[in-house]
């Protein structure tokens, strides 16, 4: 169970990105986070694994206070939280297999991994994950030789290497065309269904929210403006979330 309590983030320049946000995510839920660009979706996801330090409020995960964890404890928490990014964030010049293996860095001993050496079990696991996303034969290609969709699949494989209990997906399909988008979303759905991994996924397109999410929350200007099942988002709700001038496209 992930509990976010009164989460607030004010950036150094004074921008209020999150304003007293509270919600709960039971284990194994697929939660969609929606809202306009700049409404605080990315900040929210990054506060969960503290890539961004919250200004105020608490995040409790299985009753452990993430916001209070020290550096070493945070590292141990992070390795249970996989993350998938809008721009994939692969290391372009490294081979695909190294990108996937880097998902395992939290588990291997730091000394060994400095020499780019991973235990055999990790290497085998990396190949399995690559096979899972259908990129087995691309293992030794450089990451920037892959297409966008393929790169995001590597991103998913990297997150799976962590044996995650939760996956944070920050607009994972915003840079992809609709066909590829469904492909990636299906991987996330499988992970959610088969492995019981909690998924927090920020999304742009409402039809994706309707199709994949168990629950949705909506942010507007840093405030939580909606929390409930996706099917409750009707036209009135939609205008509440996205503003009066907004029109539905998907």
């Amino acid at each position, binding site marked *: 169970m992930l509990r976010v309590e009164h989460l607030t983030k004010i950036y150094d320049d004074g921008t209020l990105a999150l304003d007293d946000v509270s919600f709960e995510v039971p284990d194994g839920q697929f939660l969609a986070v929606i809202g306009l660009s700049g409404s605080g979706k990315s900040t929210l996801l990054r506060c969960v*694994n503290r890539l961004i330090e919250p200004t105020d409020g608490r995040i409790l995960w299985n009753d452990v206070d993430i916001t209070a964890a020290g550096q070493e404890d945070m590292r141990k928490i992070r390795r249970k939280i996989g993350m998938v990014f809008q721009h994939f964030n692969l290391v372009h010049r490294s081979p695909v297999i190294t990108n996937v293996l880097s998902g395992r*860095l*939290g588990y291997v*001993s730091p000394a060994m991994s400095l020499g780019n050496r991973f235990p055999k079990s990790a290497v085998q696991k990396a190949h399995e994950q690559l096979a899972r996303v259908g990129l087995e034969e691309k293992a030794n290609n450089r990451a920037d030789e892959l297409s966008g969709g393929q790169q995001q699949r590597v991103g998913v494989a990297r997150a799976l*290497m962590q044996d995650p209990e939760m996956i944070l997906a920050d607009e994972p399909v915003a840079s992809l065309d609709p066909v590829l988008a469904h492909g990636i979303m299906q991987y996330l759905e499988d992970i959610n269904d088969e492995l019981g991994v909690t998924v927090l996924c920020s999304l742009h397109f409402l039809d994706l929210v309707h199709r994949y999410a168990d629950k949705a929350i909506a942010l507007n200007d840093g405030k939580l403006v909606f929390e409930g099942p996706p099917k409750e988002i009707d036209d009135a709700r939609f205008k509440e979330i996205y503003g009066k001038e907004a029109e539905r496209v998907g």
Partner: protein
Amino acid sequence: MADRDSSPEAIDESPQDSEKKPRRSGKRFWFILLAVLVGIGIYAYAFDKTGVNFDEIQNETRQESLVRIIRKLARPELLTYESVKTSFDAEYMSPCPSGGYDPEDPSTSGPYVTLAPSCIELGGEITLEGFNLNANRNGDIFYVTGDGIEIRLGEFQTDETGSFSQVVSTRERASDDPQIIRATTAVTVGSIFAWEQVATGETDRETGEEIFVTSPRLSQTSLDTWDKIIETVFLALIATTVGTLIAIPLSFFAARNLMKDVAMPLMALTMSIAFAVAGMGVGFMVLRFARGTADLFSDTTAIAAIALAIGTAATYFLAKWAVPSTEEEEPSAGLRTARLTAVVVAFVTGMISLFLVSVILTDIGEWLAPKLGSFEFLGTFVTSVGDIFWLFVSALTALVTGFAFMFLGSRVGIGLRKRLPNGAVKPVNYLLGAIAGAMSVVVIAQVIAWLYEITDPMKTFWVPAAIGAVLGLLGAFMAMGKESVGIGLTIYYTARTIFNAIRAIEPLVMVIVFVVWVGLGAFAGSIALALHTTAALAKLYSEQVESISLGPIEAIKATGATRMQTIIYAVAPQIVPPYISFTMYRWDINVRMSTIIGFAGGGGIGFLLQQNINLLNYRAAAVQMLAIAIVVASMDYISSRLRERFV
């Protein structure tokens, strides 16, 4: 993330009032006039200070000197021509016969001499003229008796066209036959289009054959220049290699994007400072122990080799057990202690092994050197590598121990903070802050005391300790409210300042200090250049680190990787191309720099060049300039090609 849609306020460009316009342009006119006047004043002063003087440029004697030097520089002394003594005879009659005397005209196609007048009274003066001889040469003038004996009458000097004219007094000897005046001078043999063999007049002692030399051949200047230009290129190579190796790790400390988030709880910081001082002491002890142990086995190479094998094996297996390849589960306290002990023991045996490697290398080098003949330098190299290794391992031991203790200190600090009851955190923080402050200031004071030879313990210990304690207390007070103290930017600014300070001093100046330390020559030059390279590259590299894309760093960090792993997996792959590019660029600069570092005694070709300039030996200096031009141009070309290929 934080980028919110802010509608940019339209900037209203209202047309300016027609009334305001002329006043504004009037103001502008005066402003420009003032600026121009100030500009003229600045340049006038600059002319005065730099002594710009166009009278000097037009001065004729100066122009002549300039022309002379340029002409000499245009004829680099690349080749030596062998010269052979050659004689030219001319005849006259004394006293004058009744019908006068009309000698045969000499052939004017080659060098020749003439006498005027062709007949004189006894002991009269006669003018000897020579043509088509070698330019700017000295020669002797002889009177040749009927028996063929030469009697010296005087000497001559040819001008730039190879001509001369010299008045000599003739001998008071009357004869009915023509008498001979002989001009003897050295004439160069051969040309670059037609080599000639010239007898040296010496014979080979074994074969008894005459020794010939080729003319023209490479001059001694050319040979020396070749020798020194090779030295120059390798000087640049060593400086670049050493500078690069040191600059790479340092560059990360000077990269703002990596350092700005580095922070630790106050107690961890103070603890690690306190432990660092202890670490220095322990590091020194470990060093002495490892060196002493290695010395025990260094009697013969065989014993050293056996000891090395045992040491390496022990290190390997201990390290393998102590550092498991995965850390899935939390190990028990006992196991962790045992592992920590194993790591420490492995570290010590590892250091002993490394010292043994140094001993063995030195032995091998010394054994090899006499057997290799003209490749002796390879043996000497191995010995040198052994020596360098010894120094390197010593530094490594001290550094690793220091850092290990700092790390341990921060862990102890974190652990302590967790366990302390809330009320105790404050006083303990103040106490530790005071201790850490006192320790840091005392260390700085010791350095100052050493520099200025202060021995009074009141000044070198007690007062600094008190000041440090107060500063530490203040620091602790200011940091108390915060979760953790940002030390990253402090390190960043310190590193930046040091790099900039070192970079500001030209290697040409640095070399003066190193010449005092290691003596004149290329070694001093290498150290100076390497130091400057380190600072310059560390800065350039760090700026590259600052410009990498942050996405991968974020991604790697999110996997639970440590800071070190993040650097290796997210930062390192991104900076390889710019690092190679900058290293090439620096290698280029170093070659250019090393050509003049000899001016200050740093070895390389600059030494020869300066010597020849001081001796006004411009033709030799021209050879060195030519060599520099060729090397710099080809380095430029090669490095740009390599950069193209790698990047």
